[in-house]
């Protein structure tokens, strides 16, 4: 299979299942987003206490304003950062490769500690010894982790105000308004009472306290405080109600944001939506990227899902009157082909009838205009239509709408649109997933296992 090789190097929680530490698979699974299956990237908490990557949940909520796990109604504005999770993920990712190597390595180093030779012929013995080995290896691992932990530079936020002698009062400055307060108050202050701009300039500008060990200092306000004097924290973009905006206004909005403003209306809306997602997710991030990087992300989107996406998406955008994003034009025209044909035929028929009538009613008055009379007398309606435009304008206006209003009367046509087709189906509660609070397949699997066990006992 071609695809296997390309994804050989994809890290997955199942990597642990083959090692002596299968329990780490669950640990790793807990650090991964359920939408992208990747490690959490800027994890956000929903108001129902589920965690997703900022980008993932923003995209999912844009498509359907419900939590992807429990389907409770969610708002983008209610998302909150889950920095503890981010810290856990970063720490785990950093040490993952080493851990995996250690877990996969055959336990040669430890043979000395195990008196029974590893080459023992009895399988039972080998099992026992390897179990003991893995136990000792687990201990080794723990002590190794402890060593590493001990060697970490201590992420001491107490040292933060220290270099600045003016403020040796045990307080810290709010990263935004620079007001001084106790550390524990900072988060709440930022969430509630912070004015959003420096209230008054401090006597001394805060020093740049961060050097090489910044990465270990993961407390939110510390990291924020580094960026406070430099570029201002980007502000989240509000969502637009596109139906209220005319094309020109929307284009202007896009241009103002500094993103491409070309393409169809549908593309404009999708691009704006994507930009809001990218931008706001970046605002959530502890280490916001520069706008140029975000523009590159938008560029990638443009190539894969946006205006320059390959495949037939172009044909989709041509039919703008059909607003549904995944509209299947081929199927639509195939399905309604006979209806369209009927409409065309009936329109031609009424047109021809109207012309005939017009000719009969005013045979004498019409004679002075030879080009028209010849045109009207032709039997092909297609030819009649253009030529009749000038003499019987009234007829056109009266007849055309009539023929449009008439439903195709042909009884044999497949005019009944099949999207109204009623199929006798009901979501079976036993496998309808919508009401379960957690990834339902687990429960289904458990039920299945139970039923299987019950069924397989007699045999």
């Amino acid at each position, binding site marked *: 299979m071609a695809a296997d090789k390309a994804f*050989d190097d994809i890290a997955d929680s199942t990597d642990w299942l083959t090692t002596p530490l299968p329990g780490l698979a669950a640990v790793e699974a807990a650090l991964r987003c359920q939408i992208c299956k990747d490690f959490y990237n800027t994890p956000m908490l929903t108001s129902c206490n589920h965690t997703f990557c900022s980008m993932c949940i923003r995209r999912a909520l844009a498509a359907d304003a419900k939590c992807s796990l429990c389907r409770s109604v969610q708002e983008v504005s209610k998302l909150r950062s889950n920095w503890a999770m981010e810290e856990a993920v970063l720490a785990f990712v950093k040490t993952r490769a080493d851990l995996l190597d250690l877990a996969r390595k055959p336990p040669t180093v430890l043979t000395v500690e195990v008196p029974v030779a590893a080459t023992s012929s009895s399988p039972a013995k080998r099992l026992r010894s390897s179990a003991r080995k893995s136990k000792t290896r687990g201990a080794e691992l723990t002590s190794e982790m402890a060593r590493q932990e001990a060697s970490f530079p201590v992420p001491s936020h107490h040292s933060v105000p220290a270099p600045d002698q003016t403020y040796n009062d045990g307080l810290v400055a709010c990263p935004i308004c620079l007001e001084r307060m106790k550390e524990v108050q900072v988060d709440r202050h930022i969430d509630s009472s912070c004015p959003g701009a420096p209230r008054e300039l401090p006597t001394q500008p805060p020093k740049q306290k961060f050097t090489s060990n910044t990465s270990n200092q993961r407390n939110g306000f510390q990291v924020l405080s580094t960026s406070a004097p430099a570029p201002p924290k980007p502000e989240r973009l509000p969502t637009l109600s596109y139906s209220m905006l005319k094309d020109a206004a929307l284009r202007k909005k896009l241009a103002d944001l500094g993103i491409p403003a070309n393409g169809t209306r549908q593309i404009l809306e999708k691009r704006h939506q994507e930009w809001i997602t990218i931008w706001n997710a970046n605002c959530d991030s502890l280490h916001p990227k520069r706008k140029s990087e975000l523009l590159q992300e938008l560029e990638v989107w443009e190539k894969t899902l946006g205006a320059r996406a390959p495949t037939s998406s172009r044909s989709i955008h041509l039919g703008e009157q059909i607003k549904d994003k*995944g509209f299947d034009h081929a199927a639509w025209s195939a399905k309604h082909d006979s209806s369209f044909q009927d409409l065309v035929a009936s329109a031609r028929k009424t047109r021809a009838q109207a012309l005939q009538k017009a000719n009969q009613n005013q045979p004498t008055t019409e004679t002075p205009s030879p080009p028209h009379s010849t045109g009207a007398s032709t039997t092909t309606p297609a030819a009649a239509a253009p030529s009749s435009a000038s003499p019987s304008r009234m007829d056109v206006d009266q007849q055309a709408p009539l023929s449009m209003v008439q439903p195709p009367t042909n009884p044999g046509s497949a005019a009944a649109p099949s999207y109204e087709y009623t*199929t*006798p189906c009901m*979501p*079976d509660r036993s496998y309808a997933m919508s009401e379960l609070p957690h990834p339902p397949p687990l429960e289904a699997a458990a039920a299945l296992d139970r039923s299987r066990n019950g069924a397989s006992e007699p045999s």
Partner: protein
Amino acid sequence: MSLGTKRLGKELTKIQKTLPPGITLVKADDLQEWLLDIQVLDQNPIYAGETYRLKFRFGKQYPIEPPEVVFTKQENRPIPMHPHIYSNGIICLDLLGSSGWSPVQNVESVCMSIQSMLTGNTKNHRPEGDADFVSTNKARPKDIEFYYHDNEV
């Protein structure tokens, strides 16, 4: 690499390693269309001894949007009898519609849902109006608006 590609890559590596009993990966040469075989493992007489082939097709918006999942008919791979499965392989399952889908679902969970949908079934017949539907339907499965009205099945 878009979100969908990455996510499908992860799913593929995972299901190449482990899949629940009764579900096997048949073909996944690209990230557009995969084939999986499913079996019903209990002694349900309607499905005993049979293997059914599922075809997954992933759109570019996956996993935000649901994949298209149908049974395909081949030699030794019939379309299972079920009051929610049409004889052309289209499955009427709210999980696969845009209203029932959630991006936390994946290929494995969908297979298991369908497996359990078969396991729990006792009615050996097709949906009402099957012949009519099969002969007239030209829409893609996700564009069909199923009208769910029977609570009993």
